[in-house]
């Protein structure tokens, strides 16, 4: 019974943590723009949280730089289970234009397991909302 309640609240109101692991900032501005009145992702109950310990979903963007690698793993471990990861943008999927650079590991899935990939360079806010809703449908 309690499980059902918890699951219902997780679907109805996922709290997200926004993480930038070395991106050019375009995807991050689009993620923040998803909160603004035009796209308004808060109507899905999604709240942008400051700390990994409160978050259900990690929304990550950017190719992983060597410096950010341990921080990314540490944040992933600090997030309580069950957790989901959304990789936003072409950089988070495979490195985009920076593939082959000496400081880039590749996509985010080289470091932490990813559940949803949202393509685009940058991913439009509509696409990000679509990705989040698809994730909620899978839960």
């Amino acid at each position, binding site marked *: 019974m309690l499980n059902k309640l918890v699951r219902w609240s997780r679907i109805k109101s996922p709290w997200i943590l926004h993480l930038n692991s070395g991106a050019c900032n375009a995807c991050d501005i689009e993620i923040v723009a998803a909160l603004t009145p035009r796209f308004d992702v808060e109507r899905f109950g999604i709240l942008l949280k400051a700390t990994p310990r409160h978050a259900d979903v990690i929304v990550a963007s950017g190719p992983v730089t060597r410096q950010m690698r341990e921080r990314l793993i540490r944040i992933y471990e600090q997030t309580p289970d069950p957790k989901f990861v959304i990789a936003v943008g072409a950089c988070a999927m495979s490195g985009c234009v*920076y593939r082959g650079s000496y400081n*880039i590991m590749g996509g985010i899935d080289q470091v932490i397991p990813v559940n949803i990939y949202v393509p685009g360079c940058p991913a439009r806010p509509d696409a990000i909302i679509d990705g989040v809703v698809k994730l909620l449908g899978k839960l």
Partner: protein
Amino acid sequence: MKFQIPIGPQHPALKEPISLRMTVDGEIITDADIRLGYNHRGVEKVAEAKNWIQNIYLVERICGICSHSHSTCYVQGVEKLMELAPPKRGMYIRYLVSELERVHSHLLWLGVAGHEAGFDSFFMYVWRDREIVMDLLELISGNRVHYAINTVGGVRRDLDEGQKAKILEGVATLRKRSEYYLHIGANEPSFVARIAGVGFLSLEKAIALCAVGPTARASGWPRDVRKEDPYAVYDEMDFEVGTADSCDVLGRVVVRVKELLESYKICEQILHKLPPGDIAVKAPRKAKPGEVVSRYEAPRGENIHYIKSNGTDKPERLKVRAPTLGNYPATVEMLKSGFIADIPLIFASIDPCICCAERAVSLVNIRSGEETIVRLSDLRRRSIEQHKNAPPKRNAVWPF
């Protein structure tokens, strides 16, 4: 006793990771240290392996907010190396997108500044209006960010009469809204009092530390690359350079609002004077050996690219210095003798484009030597609480 506090690489306020270690004594910051490198992607090395056209798309993605400024600075330089003269119509379209990008960037920043000062409804209003500019840019180029409208020798897409009319209409709406925000901002005493006197940077220090852009212009430094080194279209346009004398965050807000209003003027002039003709000339595959220095006034300051070619179709060396990197020594200076609670505001006032240079904030407690990670959202909450009941500062008045 002195504390040193680290504000860790991931924090919600600044969308990008950067590390600042600040040495504090009680509430006052005595020293600050910036740790870059979280966002270092090795673009300069990757650029040596791609040809001139592929590099346009690489250079564009150095930054998401000022992407057209990097792309234009690069393409200006390559055109000089190849001795190409792009047609007038192409140049006008290119710099129209530049000015629209400046509008979008300043509106973004105004929203963030309002958010940092605790004025969240202002943030939502401004970002709603920013969507008008995003729609105009999408109309011209097909994408909201990373417009990819530049090519070596001109631009890739043309404007027709319907698009022109829509842009003029959008700019007129934005101008009305911006003047409304100006009115609100000037008449909201708590907002003005919150930002006046914070983040002081004197003119001598700004010159010695080579600060650029609105950060330096708010201290009275009157230089702007568009006036000094007028590339292409700017010597035919009539506009003024915004400066302020108060050397603090209020001055920087004033300078950016002035630039916003001037940008609307420039956009309208460009559209009214748009000449007919071609939009691009054909560029050769290889560039002659040589070197070129290309400077550009991005929304955040002076952007400089140094390109060296050795006669092949790939650059020998591409050096990029984005404007935010030039403002770092000035930021360290501003943070000294400031309060901890003012860190988010001071940092936001230089309009940091961390992807142009990455950072996180950490404060180290000198007294006990222990490190505490303070999130910028906590700092912001603390600063809003602290200043809620403070009396308004006597000389905090909007200058115009």
